[in-house]
């Protein structure tokens, strides 16, 4: 199944047999995953299970010791992050990542990098094509600001935003890169329940606009209510996968991960 998954036409991303060892530690062992377009998939698991590491491997920041990653039918294992991003696979980060000394507007304008074409000469000589493109990118940046509801912050330095706004901006930067597949690493961490609710709505909107989402999140309330499909990692192994209902009742998942925290998520 795993090998053929890569070649199945309706597969956007597939991991087959991904393993990683660092300094004698087995961080990931033979992980398989298949994501179909248009869905919201979640990756959950206890701390240190290897979720962020899996993201790092998918997005090209780390190289697996074994296994391969296919995106849109291409083998992207070991490619550079920026090459992978070009193909339409973009991630956000567990720790907030923004361009701190740039304004919010500049942050987003920069994030539209891949939508631009103009080169060195166009820039130096300010050719008409260059000027047109600049205009267009600025317009799109303003649209994105509206989508994120950050218009009033446009000219503030990103570093001066509150934590929640920074997380939002982080996601906005990833969105601006126009991904086909968006990887979100704990986007709701540090948001309070009502903020999380708003955020969840935003993720829905993004998904509705045709972007496939792979989510890592410890907020079970959000995960269970939003995901089409969930995979659970524990100590680098996949211990379960399926729909939210299956996962919530899986005894192993409850033992290793959910604990009684689940009840609270359902409250």
């Amino acid at each position, binding site marked *: 199944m795993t090998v053929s998954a890569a070649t199945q036409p309706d597969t956007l991303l597939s991991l087959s047999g991904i393993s990683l060892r660092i300094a004698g530690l087995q961080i990931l062992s033979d992980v398989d995953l298949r994501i179909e377009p248009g869905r919201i998939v979640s990756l959950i698991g206890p701390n240190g299970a290897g979720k962020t590491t899996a*993201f790092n491997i998918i997005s090209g920041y780390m190289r697996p010791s074994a296994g391969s990653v296919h995106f849109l039918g291409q083998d992207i294992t070991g490619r550079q992050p920026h090459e992978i991003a070009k193909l339409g696979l973009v991630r956000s980060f567990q720790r907030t990542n923004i361009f701190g000394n740039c304004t919010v507007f500049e942050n987003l304008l920069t994030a539209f990098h891949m939508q631009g074409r103009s080169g060195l000469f166009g820039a130096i000589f300010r050719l008409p094509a260059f000027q047109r493109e600049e205009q267009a990118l600025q317009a799109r940046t303003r649209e994105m600001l509206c989508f994120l509801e950050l218009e009033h912050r446009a000219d503030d330095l990103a570093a001066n935003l509150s934590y929640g706004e920074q997380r939002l901006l982080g996601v906005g930067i990833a969105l601006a890169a126009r991904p086909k597949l968006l990887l979100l690493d704990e986007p709701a961490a540090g948001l309070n329940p009502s903020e999380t609710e708003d955020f969840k709505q935003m993720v829905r909107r993004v998904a509705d606009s045709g972007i496939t989402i792979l989510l890592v999140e410890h907020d079970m309330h959000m995960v269970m209510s939003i995901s089409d499909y969930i995979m659970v990692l524990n100590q680098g192994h996949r211990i379960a996968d399926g729909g939210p209902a299956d996962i919530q009742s899986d005894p192993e998942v409850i033992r290793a991960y959910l604990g009684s925290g689940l009840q609270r998520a359902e409250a």
Partner: protein
Amino acid sequence: MRRLSFLITVAALASLPVLWPDPYLLSVVAAAGIMIIAAISLNLLLGFTGQLSLGHAAFFGIGAYTSALLSLGFDVDLGFSSPLVVEPKPVWVAFVGAIVMASLFGWLLGKVAFRVRGAYFVIVTISFAQVMRMVALNWVDLTEGPMALVSIPPLSLWVPGEGVVRLVSKASTYWLVLAAGVLAYVIVANLVRSRIGRAAIALRENEVLAKSIGIPVTRCLIVFSVLSAGIAGAAGGLYAHTVRIIDPDVFLFIYTITMVIMVIAGGKGTLAGPVVGGLIFGLLPEVLRGVVAPEVQWIIYGALMILILLFMPKGIVPAFGGLIKRHRISLRRRPSATQGVNP
């Protein structure tokens, strides 16, 4: 508005030789101007990509030596059967050769150096400049070593009605440097306010994030490295043909330091920074000369530098320009925003 004030400034600068035709003054300002061009090129790397090159004098020196050697001609025995003989070339050909050669080294160093970042990058660039200095010092057949390359021809220009004139007068040197400086400024200004300029800034601010949105970090750095080296090489070429002597000490660390001082004190990552910093620190020694002993001049120079940094940590231009709002607070690291090791 911005364009207008820019034009007025240029016009004012261009009229200096008419208003104040003292050859000594002009030569001092021209010399500062050459360093300013070098500082502008350094700012491209340091200010916009955030990569601190402390071997920048190497590109300056390579430009100077290339231009000088091509215009003087040389023959060296490379250990093959026949020696390599290069006939003297016209000065402008030599000058273009200098830019090409410096850019080439910029590319080479970029390839090597950008495998590493931060302090390691700094040390690679320092090492590069040191090695270049040793070559210039010891490859006596080519460079004359510590004996210096002398009698380098001046640049010349075809003037309608007068034919080809050698640009030896202090005023013509001044205008030449001014023209080159304006060109360098405009290139850099246009470059950084573009998609590729933003990419560089992105990578200065947060490399991990820049990669994630598809910015080809290495290629972007190399482009900037090549351009920066090319401009520095042009400054070196200008230097060679105006001072008309060049020795291995142009590779000395202190020249890089001078450029760094100009950029950071002026305000790195701002367009006007290197110009303002360059004017202050390029002309300061001249202003102080005659007032106090040379050592005291330098002590004042150092002290002024420290004071500027203590009171205007972002440099002069941002401090006065109000372009960027109060930075001290925002730069305080917020724990969540910076630790980029673990994305």
